[in-house]
């Protein structure tokens, strides 16, 4: 099987979508640049022309709104926001317009727009060049939100998003761009709303999104080395999310860790935890743990960044916490199954 990086997989999806559907065009900042959105759009303008690959004015609002207007009248635009932070200038078209349009007009028209929001953080970029806002957009009815963590899903979910017929926010994280994986050369879709079980296990369920799903793959290796048998679910779709898959897993393991590299309050993890508490409370053998960013803006200085961001080691620690024996689970005594572990990013 052929291997591609995550960035190459996105690029291939865009090329195949443009080749197969004349309604598709790409609109956003930096699309004619070889580096502005990583290599995900590199030279596509040369192949398909600058009418279909439009490097936009510095107008997130008008760019997104125009794409939505074009989608309402039958086009299939992909809007690219090289930084999710800047996309906040376009919240009206995304939330008030695209997400509500089908409902406001009783399903007589859809808004087949893909809003590609890139998380681009680390490297001392600080608070306005770092945000991961999936929880904010998960809150909105009428909007679908996907977050692939592998090259295979990066391609398949982008194609599914464009073909969906509804507004889909496609969130990719630049920390994943160099990940490699098997990617079939043909066009294929990954169904929106379906999670992937990355590892079957019985001791604990780990649900992770995007970058944290990639980190969780490392974490489960460490856990397995220590004789722990976790189940890992890569959520892939944030909205709708695969409730059945997660519920089924938690009912089996009785323990849950949710990892999402975004703020904890009202985030993706909060929604999953709330759902499990409501629907599988009796199956829980221990309190649930969340691995999220603290409710703090992204810092700049490197030592602060190191304290802020989370990774595989944090997942391992969280699993340790929830793996206490049932008889001790609801006490506050500390407990450690794994005395030492080292994980490199």
């Amino acid at each position: 099987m052929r291997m591609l990086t995550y960035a190459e997989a996105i690029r291939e999806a865009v090329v195949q979508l443009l080749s197969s559907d004349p309604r598709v065009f790409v609109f956003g900042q930096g699309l004619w640049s070889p580096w502005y959105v990583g290599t995900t759009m590199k030279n596509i303008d040369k192949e398909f022309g600058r009418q279909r690959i439009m490097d936009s004015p510095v107008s997130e609002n008008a760019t997104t709104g125009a794409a939505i207007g074009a989608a309402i009248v039958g086009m299939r635009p992909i809007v690219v926001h090289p930084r999710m932070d800047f996309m906040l200038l376009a919240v009206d078209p995304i939330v008030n317009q695209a997400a509500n349009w089908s409902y406001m007009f009783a399903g007589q028209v859809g808004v087949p727009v893909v809003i590609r929001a890139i998380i681009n953080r680390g490297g001392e970029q600080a608070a306005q060049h770092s945000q991961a806002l999936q929880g904010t957009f998960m809150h909105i009815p009428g909007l679908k939100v996907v977050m692939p963590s592998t090259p295979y899903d990066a391609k398949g979910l982008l194609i599914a998003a464009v073909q969906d017929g509804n507004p889909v926010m496609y969130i990719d994280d630049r920390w994943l761009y160099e990940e490699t994986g098997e990617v079939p050369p043909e066009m294929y879709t990954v169904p929106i709303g379906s999670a992937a079980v990355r590892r079957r296990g019985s001791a604990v369920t780990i649900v992770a999104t995007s970058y944290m799903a990639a980190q969780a793959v490392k974490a489960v290796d460490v856990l397995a080395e220590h004789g722990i048998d976790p189940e890992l679910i890569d959520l892939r779709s944030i909205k709708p999310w695969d409730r059945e898959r997660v519920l089924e897993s938690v009912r089996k393991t009785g323990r849950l860790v949710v990892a999402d590299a975004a703020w904890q309050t009202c985030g993706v993890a909060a929604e999953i935890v709330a759902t499990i508490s409501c629907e599988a409370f009796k199956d829980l053998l221990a309190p649930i743990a969340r691995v999220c960013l603290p409710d703090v803006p992204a810092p700049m200085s490197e030592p602060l960044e190191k304290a802020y961001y989370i990774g595989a080691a944090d997942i391992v620690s969280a699993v340790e916490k929830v793996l206490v024996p049932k008889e001790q689970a609801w006490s506050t005594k500390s407990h450690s199954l794994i005395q030492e572990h080292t994980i490199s990013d």
Partner: protein
Amino acid sequence: MPTAIDSSNVGTDLLLEMYRTMLRIRRFEEEVADLVEASEVKCPCHLYIGQEAVATGVCAALDKEDYVWGGHRSHGHYLAKGGNMDAMMAEVFGRLTGCSGGRGGSMHLFAPEVGIFGTVPLVSATIPLAVGSALAAKLRGERRVTVSFFGDGATEEGHFHESMNMAAVYRLPVIFVCENNFYSSHLGLLERRAEDNIYQAGEAHAISGVRIDGNDVLTVYKATADAVGLARCGVGPTLLECRTYRWRGHVGPSWDMDVGVKRKDELKDWLAKDPVARVSTLLFDRGIDESRLAQIDRAARAEVGNAVAFARESPYPDKSTLAEHVFYSEKEVC
């Protein structure tokens, strides 16, 4: 402001058609005002009475397949573009047979068969959407143009300026029609902007900006026809500032509740510029007798009466459908 155009260039049939459209809007709005007052209609209704010449003159210069986007005060746009009156009345009543299935009400109108893919009340929100439908038409190589209707308040939003720039840079076939009625809700124009110069915003974005008498349907028609010509041949967008006045309050049937006594004097001046009466005078001068005009009025009233009857007889959406249509499904569309 350019002087009124020579009305002799416009055929009597077209003038009669515009008169008919304006009266249909006027009578519809008067009926809605009464229905709101009687609490039979409960959703917020922003009435178009006094502004009929703008929608009518603009839409008379468009083809059926041209796109039109509107805002919270769009009953007139919908009728002038050819939307079905029964479906709009039923929508205002919140009924299943409404143009938006009873999920939108007065502020959300939909008539894709005549190029209206949505009017929504978020001020200025449809301006970038209009740029998008113009972009779609350009990418597809179609000849159709897009009209974006919005009020003077919308020109204070960032959407407006970003959209004007975008339309100019890509030379998109879009006509920005600002209906300057001098009030945004309760607040007068000069309490919100330093100068009464909306049309000059076009110049700042390299777009031709024209200020016209929005109560003169022929002037509006002619200016729109010029702008449509520029749009269709690829020259690009135009900004039309149509100066007009809403007779009623910002929302609902009251005459001056929003802005108090000061507006009463102004209103008197604007009532004298009644756009509908101006057309009837023109027609009368052309030898159309009063009985013909009265017949047009009777027909408009009858159509409105039928629309109310249709709405009253129509069912409400069933509560079991509450969660339907959050997502679009091609299967759902009949």
